[in-house]
Structures are given as C-alpha cells and as structure tokens.
C-alpha cells in the first residue's frame, strides 16, 4: 500500500509541477531563463511545500490519534494548528520576524497549545483522563487560540496588514518562495522522523498506558517525544502556509484500515497520503475557476467527513 501511495504522490507531484497559468514548455521555447526561474522560484516551492506540509499534517494527525487513543484527535481539531497560526502571526506581523522567525513562532505556538491541552485534560492522571475530557479540553484550547488570533487581527498595525493576515490565515501555497521550502521541509522531516521512530511504542499504547508500560514503553518520555515531534511536523508548515484544516484528521482514517488498525503503523502511510491529498487539493485549487483558497477547500472536504465520523459513533 505504501508503494502505491508513493506512486500516486509522485504522479501528483509531477502534475503539480506541470500545472500553472502559463505553459512552461512554450515559455522555455521563447525564454529558457524565464522558464527556469518560473520553475525554481514558483512551481518547485509550491509542489515541495504541498508534499512536505501534507506529509507533516498526515503523520502528525496519525500520531496524535495514536498518543491520545482517540480517533477524533488531530492537530487541527485540538488546537496545535491554531497555536501554530497564532505563533506565526505574532512572530511575523508583530515582532517583524522573517521566514525563520515565523517558522520558529509556528513551532512554539504548536508546542504551547499541546502543553496547554495536556495540562487541561490532566494527561497521565490515569483512567480519569478520558477521551471526552480530552476532546472538550481541545475544543476549549482551539477556541481560546482562535480568539487570540482574532485579537491579533483587530490589533493589526494597518488595514493592509489586516488583509494580509486574513488571506494568510485561510491557508494557501500560492507565491511561496524557495527559502520557505528550504526552512520548512527539513523541520517537518525531522518531526516525521521522530514520529516514525516512536511508531512501535504508539502501537503498544493501543493496549492502554499501563499495559504499554509493562511492555517496556516509557510512557512519560513518549508523551514528550510525540509532543515535540508533532509541534515540528505541523508548526513549521502552518507558519509557511497558514491554516490547512482537516488533513490531519481525515487522512489517518483513510489509511488505518490498511495497517490492521495499528495506530503507530499508520504514521508512514498517513504522511504519504497526506502529501498526496494536499497535492491533489492544491492542483484542484489551481484548476477550479473560483478563487478558492487551499485551506478553504480542505475544510470543505474535511468537515463533512468529520461529521460522518461523529454520526457513525466513532
């Protein structure tokens, strides 16, 4: 299945590189230098970012669901993505940070949201830290951070900055640059590598925290490991592309049946499928006649799916 998904990903990446407002081949015939610049400065960052951010969101979603033992958990439902957006907004528009600063702000924001969530839900407090409590705490964290973003918007230094912020928050991969790709991709890759390393421990965690401990999983260390890795895998991406909703929630559910419902084993396929989904969505955004933002499109697909999950009773 992983091979099939990877092939799909490659095909979509090739398509993503080929699609754009101008035909690169005809530009190449007239002006090779311009075609090269278009490819390296626009198409390549866009495709690379879709790959990296999609993979980060998919893998982080699978790991979050595995860690919290809750199929409704994901960075974009429980707050880390909102935290990343807030961190990036604060760093980029209020502290005047550059690309690196925004990525750092995004990661810090995601980390803060995760710590707040686990603190509120009383994580590690044994069986009392139930799924319901956790999802409720996540909704509270996400709402709180959303309000903080609104506050930041209303304090925007100028109407232009406000417009900029609003557009950025909708999530898009248009007009991103090569340096943004070169900063975000390694951070996301590092986060994903940390998640993949924890996959067997996350599988054992499916048996419950105590049983996992008795099998040799250091659960306290695992919590820290996953929190940092999820913050890396989502934070840098959100800082570059804005909020891209529902990929982290939806994708793990699509791939988990193919991994025997082992939650840790789903991380790699979820990362590849997340990359494929985001590439496909980004291609669709460019082909659709409407001026639809990427984050809006993924939410339009993801929200009904989330609803069907709830209606099926998990």
């Amino acid at each position: 299945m992983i091979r099939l998904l990877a092939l799909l990903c490659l095909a979509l990446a090739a398509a993503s590189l080929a699609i754009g407002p101008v035909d690169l081949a005809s530009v190449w015939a007239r002006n090779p230098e311009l075609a090269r610049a278009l490819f390296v400065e626009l198409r390549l960052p866009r495709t690379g970012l879709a790959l990296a951010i999609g993979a980060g969101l998919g893998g982080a979603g699978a790991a979050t669901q595995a860690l919290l033992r809750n199929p409704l958990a994901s960075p974009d439902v429980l707050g880390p993505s909102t935290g990343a957006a807030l961190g990036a907004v604060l760093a980029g528009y209020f502290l005047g940070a550059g690309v690196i600063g925004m990525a750092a702000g995004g990661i810090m924001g995601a980390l803060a949201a995760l710590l707040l969530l686990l603190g509120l839900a009383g994580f590690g407090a044994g069986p009392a830290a139930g799924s319901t409590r956790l999802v409720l705490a996540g909704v509270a964290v996400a709402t709180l951070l959303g309000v903080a973003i609104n506050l930041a918007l209303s304090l925007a230094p100028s109407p232009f900055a406000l417009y900029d912020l609003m557009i950025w928050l909708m999530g898009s991969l248009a007009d991103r640059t090569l340096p943004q790709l070169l900063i975000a991709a390694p951070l996301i890759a590092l986060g994903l590598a940390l998640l993949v390393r924890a996959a067997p421990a996350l599988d054992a965690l499916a048996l419950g925290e105590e049983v996992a401990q008795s099998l040799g999983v250091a659960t306290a260390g695992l919590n820290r490991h996953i929190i940092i890795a999820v913050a890396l895998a989502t934070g840098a991406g959100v800082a570059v592309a804005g909020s891209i909703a529902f990929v982290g929630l939806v994708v793990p559910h699509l791939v988990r049946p193919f991994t025997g419902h082992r939650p840790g084993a789903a991380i790699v396929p979820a990362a590849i499928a997340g990359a494929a989904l985001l590439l496909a969505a980004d291609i669709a955004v460019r082909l659709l006649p409407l001026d639809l933002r990427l984050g809006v499109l993924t939410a339009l697909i993801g929200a009904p799916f989330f609803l069907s999950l709830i209606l099926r009773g998990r």
Partner: protein
Amino acid sequence: MLEAITLARPPMLEPVSLALPPGTVTGVIGPNGAGKTTLLKALAGLSRGPGSVLIDGEPLTPHPRRLAWLPASRDAVWPMTAATLVALGLGPGAAPDAQAVAAALAACDAAPLADRPVNQLSTGERARVLLARALVARPAWLLLDEPIANLDPGHRLDVMALLAAEAQRGAGVVLALHDLDLAARCDRLLLIHKARLVADGTPADVLQERHLAGIFGVTRAANGWQRAANAPLGD
C-alpha cells in the same frame, strides 16, 4: 521469586511485604474497593508510590517476557482484529510471531475470534482475547486483574486450569478474583480488606467462616452462598 516491599501508599494500601515463589497461582480476594487492584499494580511495578519490586533479586524492569499486566478494563479503542491485538503483546518492535499468537488465542479458546475486530466481540469474548494478549510472550510473571470476570462458567474453569498449567511450566501467576469457589483452586490466597493484607495462606486457611462472614458478609448454605445474618460489613 518476586519480592515486593512497602508497596503503594495509604489510604489506598497499607505497606505490605510479600515474597511470591514462581510456579504457583496466588489469588487476591477481598470486597470491592479493598485494594486488590492497587496491590496487583504495585506488584507489577506500575504504582508511583514508594516501594520496590525485585524479581530474582533484581529490580523489576519492564519486558514482555518478564512480566505481563492485564488490567480489569475490557476497553479496546481501535477496531483491530483479535490476532493483531494479541500480537501487540509481543512488545514494541518485536518480530512477528504468528505461531505464538495462534497458540495464545487457542489456549484461551479464542482461535475462532482471530480475524474478528475486537470492538465487535462480546465483553466475555474480548476478555479471553485480552488474556491471550497477556500470555502471548510467555512471560515469567502473570499479574491479572479479574481475568475471569465477564466469563461464562465453562470458560472460568478453563481459565483457572490454564493458569494452573502456566504455573506448571514455571510461571508465577497472581490474579484478583471474586469467585470464592474458584479462589479455593489457587495455591495461595491473599485476603485484602480495607487496604490491609489481613490473611495470607492456603485457601483452607484463608477461606474460613469468620473471614467469609466478617469481611464478605456471606455464609455457605445448602443451596449456595447466603448473605450472613447481621453481616458486620464494618469490621
């Protein structure tokens, strides 16, 4: 030998010191809320209170082949098949061992359930699958919280016989249970009452009339168990 000293913390459990030999089945009995689970968890090295657990003189470090813990909860979050769930008992990153999984499922009379999603099983069926998960790595110590709760009478007897067989191969078995008739089949019984170990010995020693009436509030009668007259459930 599994040695445990000054476990847990009052009021959950008063300090106790125990030495359990391998090759025996030890039953932990006591009324609801007496502290059976707390004692078992402490023996499994899962409590955060002070105390130490030694296996053959070495401090207990968790390993699938050293000690298995079976919680009383029968919850399963993910709809994986019984075989997949049992395989997780081999430990994180362990090589797959389909033979061991099949043998553990068969030992718990759960072989026909192997390919069924665990969330679609009945509670009793899931209890047997979860027990198979605890057995699959053939651990030296089995610490089982109410493994026969939810089981039908036939499977209760099967599981008691299975645990006796595990003890025969040299494993140390400790289980909490409420069925006093089946408790009589253990090699040794620990009676917990109000967070205190009040009796420790053979079933004949522990299952005495005064314990049964005084602590459980029951007596034996011709037609089975009866509520004891003016059961002094206090103390």
